């Protein structure tokens, strides 16, 4: 089962190495990883999507807590969190297909952020599955280049994780 783990860590050199090293040496698979700053300058947030059963998840959380620079760790429940991935997709386009692509993008709440003679770039920020759906639908036009961030997530409502 996939879990989204959010780790609040001290903003110090080597922290990411520690976290990633922990996953690789204990044999936990990282499906995606996103790191960024938070509302506090002294801490960062690492969002990691992992696959594993409850025992594996428990060990991952405990092992993360053992790292001195890790302050807090959460397993974000899927239905109580807002989850997003950002993708930038460069699609082959010409005068004939450009409109169709634009319509498709619109239905996904995606934006065209660059138009060139032979390509357009679509920016989309959605749940992972929807990003993948859009990607699939764009394939027939020819995807020239695609870049995706790892998932970031935040708990809904007043609960404040970190």
């Amino acid at each position, binding site marked *: 089962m996939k879990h989204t783990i959010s780790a609040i*860590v*001290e903003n110090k*050199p*080597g922290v990411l*190495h*520690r976290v990633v*090293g*922990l996953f690789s*040496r204990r044999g936990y698979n990282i499906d995606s990883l996103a790191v960024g700053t938070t509302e506090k300058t002294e801490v960062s947030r690492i969002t990691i999507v992992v696959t594993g059963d409850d*025992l594996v998840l*428990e*060990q991952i959380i*405990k*092992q993360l*807590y*053992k*790292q*001195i*620079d*890790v*302050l807090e760790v959460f397993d974000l429940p899927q239905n109580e969190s807002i989850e997003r991935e950002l993708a930038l997709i460069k699609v082959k386009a010409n005068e004939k297909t450009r409109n169709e692509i634009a319509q498709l993008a619109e239905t996904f709440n995606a934006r065209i952020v660059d138009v060139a003679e032979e390509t357009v770039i679509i920016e989309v920020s959605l749940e992972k599955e929807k990003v993948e759906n859009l990607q699939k639908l764009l394939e027939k036009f020819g995807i020239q280049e695609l870049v995706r961030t790892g998932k970031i997530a935040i708990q809904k409502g007043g609960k404040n994780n970190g």
Partner: protein
Amino acid sequence: MTIFPQYDKIPIQMKISGAQALIESLKKEGVEIVFGYPGGTVLPIYDVLYGEKAIKHILPRHEQGSTHAADGYARVTGKVGVCIATSGPGATNTITGIATAFMDSIPMVIITGQVATPLIGRDSFQEADITGITQPITKHNYLVKTAEEIPRVIKEAFYIASTGRPGPVVVDIAKDAQVNKFDFKYPDKVNLPGYKPTLKGDPEQVKAAAKLIAESKKPLIYAGGGVIASGAAAELTEFARKLNTPVTTTLMGLGAFPETDKLALQMLGMHGTAFANYAVQECDLLIAVGARFDDRVTGHLPSFAPKAKHIQIDIDPAEIGKNVRIDVPIVGDVKQTLKELNALIPVKAGRHLAWLKQIEEWKNKFPLSYKKNNFIKPQYVIEMIDEVTKGEAIICTEVGQHQMWAAQFFKFTKPRTWVSSGGLGTMGYGFPASIGAQFGRPDSTVFNIAGDGSIQMNIQELATAVIHKLPIKIVVLNNSFLGMVRQWQELIYEKRYSSTNLCNNPDLVKIAEAYGAKAMRITDQTKVKAALEEAMKITDGPVLLDFSVDKEENVLPFVPPGQALNEMIID
């Protein structure tokens, strides 16, 4: 030389170099001895150490030796072991020592020099990314790039190394940070928001454990290195006697409970006693105290203690349920938790008599034993060491057959008298560790029990032992084999003794003598005791006793890998 001869103590603020700040910080932490090897990037530190009186510096002959010595010192004293190495190869030579300490949760601070900050990341001479390299084998590590950080980092390093589940901490200090001057002030406390070990067990869990204990008919205490680390041997003994419950210890737990006690089952696991292993398989409640269900202990995991409920007391939450499902986990300091449990257990005579009778039968039927013949039996040598020392000795070992025989046949009665690489299984550990142990406990008799393979892995430390007149008794159980590997080849690989024959060994007596140590070769079993007695009389330096033992003796019992504990080979 003190840095400020004109002052009794350092003024609160004073400009000093990073290297001076390091040594002052070590003094603030109560460090009396460091084991280190100089080199280019630690020259400023060694300049401060020159003539330093408050901190004794010991120069081993290899950086690996200094780490094991610091580790041995830490194991016998309970204090933080400290060592120093230069950058690059000096630092990489400490890796085995750091990993050894990490696997056995030994508190150490390893100070390494690093090339100056403008040179970092440029593949400079003797540059190695030691914080990167040691990241998976340290409790924590630091790369210090400015002198100002040194006091805080040293304070934190000692705090992290010695609290919670102890472990090694590497402090890598760039050379310019050692040279630059700043206003030194040692912090009073640490500020580590991400590090707060849980010492007090949840009272509800402690009550739940007491309830399980009260309901149990066949309880068994399984005690590990956590009992030693926590200083809880007295509490464990009270717990066991109050409950009238047998105790088996792991290799790391030797000395946590007196093996002379009738409740003692000695070691369990792959080379544990048959009665300990049978007790594990039959008990209805297993109380794990500071132990981590290692594969050498459990054998085939699903078959381990199949009839038992499990209580686990451990300071490290990540150890709870890592390998075995636990019914009542208690995260907390072992000593404190046992005190609380002891207070909850009512005094009641005659507990578990039927269970103890069953165990007594196993003890009588399957004692630890060996068959005598015309050769010197390695087990006999260990028994004689126990006899001539009256059980009062610190036993340091390497890794292999001799280690298991020492664990089996010496009767350990006190904590911090057993110094052995349990988790990593480091050959070459024991001799340098015995040097650290002798420095830590100068009035104790220290033995290094070794095999002919292991002793050659750090034999250069004979120089260190001779120079410092350390009266270590080095006992080599010489079978001209890498004995443990040979045993596996005999039992599992049809006696195909691939690369385990050491019949071309050098003359160890001559080697010892060349270093200026005393040495004897013993080939006759009737002379074993006399040789040990003679060795005990030597107090002005090390003595090496080269015992030519029965070459193809095996360590038994033996639970073949992947088998259940009750499927052991007994004879």
